[in-house]
Structure formats: structure tokens, C-alpha cells
């Protein structure tokens, strides 16, 4: 009888492991980090990312998160380069970080939030068969707005928390880049909700390229 029970537990474990094995072949390639494309001349940094179809229906405050971070599966796009490497790349093109937000600012209410500071960045996205378009087009929001992406910096917080946050959809004390159009406290107080725009974005798992251009150096 004990052997029978043991067998049943083995079946349960095998189910989990077989699901793991189904994905492992692809996971090898997917977990490999991709290098950034940096152009000092054009003041641009281009990052490889993958579409996460989860957020076509679910709300999130994360635009891009590095796949190796603790929030790697919580964003519309799964970044394939570490947020720390991305920070250094933005520094290389001459971008200045705001570093004006603290963890305390993240507990703000709906009306007393702070906006991120730092150099303004123009963010565009493209993929195979699709010309570069404004990043805003891939975001579906419950309220109309115009993105204002800033180089928040926050390297110390990124190192401390290891969330992997590359681009947050509202002002953030950890994300390397975040949106000054929405102050801290926007998503936790449900002032606005953000999702991936299924009508615009390609299917789940598709590789995309996101370009960050230093706006004031035009």
C-alpha cells in the first residue's frame, strides 16, 4: 500500500517535471542575455525583448523587466539584457539620471505622488515586419495620456532589489527609466491601469527591439 501511495506522488511530481521539460529546450536560448546596441553618435540604446502575452488581459505597472530579475515575468515586455547593463549604456550615451525618488515615495497616495526626473528619452519599438513606432502605441491605458519617459537612474535601488525593472509605466524609485506623466502611487491607487495592446503587439513570445533615444540631444 505504501508503494502505491509513493507511486501516486511520483505521478504528481512527474506531471510538474514534464511541463518543465517541455519548455526547457527553448528556455536555454531564451535565458541567454542579448547584447545592447549602443550608438554614441545617434545617442541611442537598443534592447532586445520578448512579448509577454499575460499582460494583454492583465494590468501591470511594468513596461520592460529583465528576464533574470525577480519581476521578470511581470512586464508587457521581457527584457533580454540586465537593467544594470542598460543603466551603464544610457550613461555611455551621455544621459543624466534624475535619482530624485526614494522607496518612501512609492507609498504615495492617489494625489500626493512625485514624478520622476532625469533626461527625457524617446522610446520606440519595432519587430520583424513592423517599422519603428512610438512605445505608447503598445500600451492600452484606462486613461488618455502622453508618455514622458525619463532616465530615473536608481542604480543603487536596482542593485539592492534585483527586480530587473528597465522601464516602468508610472514614476518609480527602482526602474532605470520610468514615466513622469504618471506620479508614484498611480498604479497601486488604481488611478490608471495599463495593459499590453493586443491589437498592436505581435503574439506572445515574439522578439522585439526597443530603442531609447536621448531626446534633448536632437
Amino acid at each position, binding site marked *: 500500500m505504501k508503494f*502505491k*501511495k509513493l507511486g*501516486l*506522488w511520483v505521478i*504528481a511530481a512527474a*506531471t*510538474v517535471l*514534464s*511541463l*518543465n521539460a*517541455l*519548455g*526547457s529546450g*527553448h*528556455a536555454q*536560448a*531564451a535565458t541567454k542575455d542579448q547584447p545592447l546596441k549602443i550608438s554614441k553618435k545617434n545617442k541611442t540604446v537598443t534592447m532586445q525583448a*520578448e512579448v*509577454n*502575452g*499575460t499582460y*494583454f*488581459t*492583465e*494590468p*501591470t*505597472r*511594468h513596461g520592460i523587466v529583465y*528576464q533574470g530579475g525577480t*519581476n*521578470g*515575468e*511581470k512586464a508587457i515586455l*521581457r527584457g533580454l539584457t540586465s537593467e544594470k547593463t542598460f543603466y551603464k549604456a544610457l550613461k555611455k550615451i551621455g544621459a543624466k539620471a534624475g535619482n530624485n525618488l526614494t522607496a518612501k515615495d512609492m507609498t504615495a497616495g492617489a494625489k500626493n505622488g512625485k514624478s520622476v526626473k532625469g533626461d527625457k528619452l524617446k522610446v520606440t519599438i519595432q519587430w520583424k515586419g513592423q517599422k519603428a513606432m512610438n512605445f505608447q502605441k503598445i500600451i492600452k491605458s484606462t486613461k488618455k495620456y502622453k508618455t514622458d519617459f525619463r532616465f530615473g537612474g536608481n542604480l543603487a535601488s536596482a542593485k539592492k532589489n534585483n527586480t530587473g525593472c528597465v522601464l516602468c509605466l508610472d514614476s518609480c524609485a527602482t526602474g532605470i527609466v520610468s514615466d513622469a506623466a504618471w506620479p508614484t502611487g498611480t*498604479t*497601486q491607487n*488604481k488611478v490608471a491601469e495599463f495593459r499590453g495592446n493586443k491589437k498592436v503587439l505581435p503574439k*506572445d*513570445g515574439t522578439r522585439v527591439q526597443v530603442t531609447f533615444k536621448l531626446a534633448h540631444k536632437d
Partner: protein
Amino acid sequence: MKAIRIIYNSFIWSLLIALFCFDNLWLQMRVNTGYIFMALWVVLSLLFNLIFRKQSFGFGGWFSLVNLVICVIITLVSFGWTRLQTVPAALIREGLHQNTLSFTTVNIVLLFIIIGGLLWIMMAHRHGKSYKQA
């Protein structure tokens, strides 16, 4: 067979609870809800095995069927059909760290476990009855 019924029903409840955890934005943005599902599945299975250790009862075939129907209705009402095609698969692939698995693949495996498990339990239930009658 009792252990299978316990594991099966624990699986259904764990998935339902994990789905509601995923639905909570605060929790979803901070915790790997796939871990919640897996931990709950193990804990509930062990707990019910312990509770029903010395009893012949332990979630019968009809109980499992009614439980599944109720849980499916709750999830359909709470999440809707569109979200239901993504959310369970998303939380499972996150828990397994297999983000390249397609939602379709995970959904097929889930359906296989849910329907296959129930059929297995129901057939064993009928077989047990006819065995007793004979």
C-alpha cells in the same frame, strides 16, 4: 485511490486560490503566484492525506465531479472566458520558470490533468461499486 482523489481535489483548489492571488494586482506584482499554486498543492495534499489517513472516505468520485463543476463556474464568473485562457497558464509557466512555453501547451496539459484525472476517478469509482456488488 483515495490518495489520487485527494491530490486531484487539492490541485483544483490550489489552482483556484492561486488564480485569485494572481487577480490581486498588489500580490501579482510582488509574488510568483506559480509558487503559491505549487506550495498549496503540496500542503493541501499532505494535509488531507493526514486528515483522512484512517478513514475510507477521502473525497469520492461524485464529490470530485461536483467540486470541479463549482470551481469552473466560480472561475468563469470571476475571470471570464478570455482571461481564463491566459491566467492559469501564465501563473503555471511563471512558477516553473518556463516562459517560452506557449499558453496553448500549458492549457492542453492542464485540461489533460483536469479531465483525465476526473475520468480516472469516476472510472475507479464505478469499478469499485461493481466490485462491491459482485
